[in-house]
């Protein structure tokens, strides 16, 4: 219970506004409509592929049910929609589409990547200046726009087939996919990961060092410098910390 009239007024007004059904009062209904439209608009902007896969009417109903039950937790609407993949996974009308929640997870990763901070680029020359005996202690951070996603469905193939100008037919319909979501020239360009890149990204993403990476790659995924070179070319590597710098 709030002690002050202002807090009490806000608490009550918001509770009335956020009831799942539109208020009968036409004045209050304006706010309810705007709130729902803002949330549903945010979902539509973040999940265009899900929308294309299920159709506009189906998507709108799903978005309405989710938006009515899920408050926004931020004054920035770009933050809204993180819980939609989990909702889709439990949404009975979509139960036949096992890949749908996975595609939604990829779309949220793409959305986060699009709006992530720029971060600093990887500096190969600076890494070359690190003393050889300190290299094993170096930890390279991933760029803020990088997201890693592994799925038992070919989510990237489905995502790519449903981009603008594509007819919706994926190149693969079965099989797992591991996806690196990254941003190049301000554009989000997810790509399928090879096994050495995936292994290395997992280690670096968890804060591991090049020493950890060398040890892991020694079990047959090829030399570290080749894998690092591939990741640098994908523009997923950010700054690094060496023991001396830290």
């Amino acid at each position, binding site marked *: 219970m*709030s002690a*002050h*009239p*202002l*807090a009490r*007024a*806000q*608490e009550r*007004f*918001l509770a009335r*506004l*956020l009831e799942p059904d539109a208020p009968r009062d*036409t*004045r*209050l*209904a*304006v*706010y309810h409509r*705007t*709130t729902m439209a*803002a*949330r549903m608009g945010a979902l539509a902007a973040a999940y265009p592929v899900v929308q294309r896969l299920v159709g506009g009417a189906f998507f709108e109903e799903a978005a309405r049910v989710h938006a009515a039950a899920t*408050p*926004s*937790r*931020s*004054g*920035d*609407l*770009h933050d*809204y929609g993180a819980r939609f993949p989990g909702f889709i996974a439990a949404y009975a009308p979509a139960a036949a589409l096992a890949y749908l929640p996975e595609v939604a997870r990829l779309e949220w990763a793409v959305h986060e990547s*699009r*709006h*992530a*901070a*720029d*971060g600093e680029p990887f500096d190969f020359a600076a890494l070359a200046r690190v003393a050889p005996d300190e290299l094993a202690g170096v930890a390279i951070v991933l760029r*803020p*726009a990088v997201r890693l996603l592994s799925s038992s469905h070919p989510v990237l193939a489905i995502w790519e087939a449903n981009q603008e100008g594509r007819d919706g037919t994926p190149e693969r319909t079965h099989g797992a996919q591991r996806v690196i979501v990254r*941003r190049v020239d*301000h*554009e989000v360009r997810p790509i399928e990961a090879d096994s050495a890149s995936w292994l290395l990204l997992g280690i670096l993403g968890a804060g591991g060092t090049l020493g950890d990476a060398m040890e892991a790659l020694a079990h047959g995924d090829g030399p570290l410098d080749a894998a690092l070179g591939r990741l640098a070319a994908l523009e997923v590597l950010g700054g690094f910390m060496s023991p001396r710098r830290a």
Partner: protein
Amino acid sequence: MDGARPPARVGIGLRAPHYAQLAQRRPPLAFLEAHSENFFGGGLAPAWLERMRALYPVSLHGVGLSLGSCDSLDERHLARLAGLVRRFEPLFVSEHLSWSSFGGRHVNDLLPLPFSEEAVAHVAARIGAVQDRLGREILVENVSAYVRLEPTAMPEWEFVAEVVRRAGCKLLLDVNNVWVNAMNHGFDPADFLVAIDPASVAEIHLAGHERADGLLVDTHAAPVAREVWDLYARTVERIGPRPTLIEWDADIPPLDVLLAEAGRAEAIVA
């Protein structure tokens, strides 16, 4: 501005569909106003804003800070705003004289405050905190409202004027919101105008509204209404010319439609 044309006083809201055309055509506009939250991240949006900033003064207009809320100020939101202010050195930084969250739940809409002494003190202190955090003066905008919250002890214009006076900030006078509220709550918009200290008004907003269920709704999806143009002319007559913005945020029309609206405002304010 080149010497052939008097300096423009009117700007338009910056929306993504117009980026490329603005960069190419560079129409004579006094400034562009960007919604702060649209540039909180990295990537394409701030890269465009940087290009626009090289061509025009830019002002930042926030919709999500929830200034009047009883929740504590969102430090993450403020930090991102402060970063934008440092990077783009905006002409104005503005927010709304409203609230949009309680208990961490947001409506992402602009809810009215009760016009009480408690609300004046609360929001004025919060504005002060934001100004301290940003290291500069901000503008607050009077909002359109469809309900009145209790306890209300004064008319809206007294509330607005007192908040601005006590916070030591400036007013972003939204003339369309004055008109919408006058119609929805039954007061004479002239009462609002005479209560406002002209020296406190740093910027004026103009936008379109639409009628629904017997109410005027501030949709920002239509041309400025005839009555609002008239009220704008009376406002300029009373307080003098001010930098003026044409806002159009939904069902965004071709750039030329916005430029025509800006030209109409320019003819009144020049």
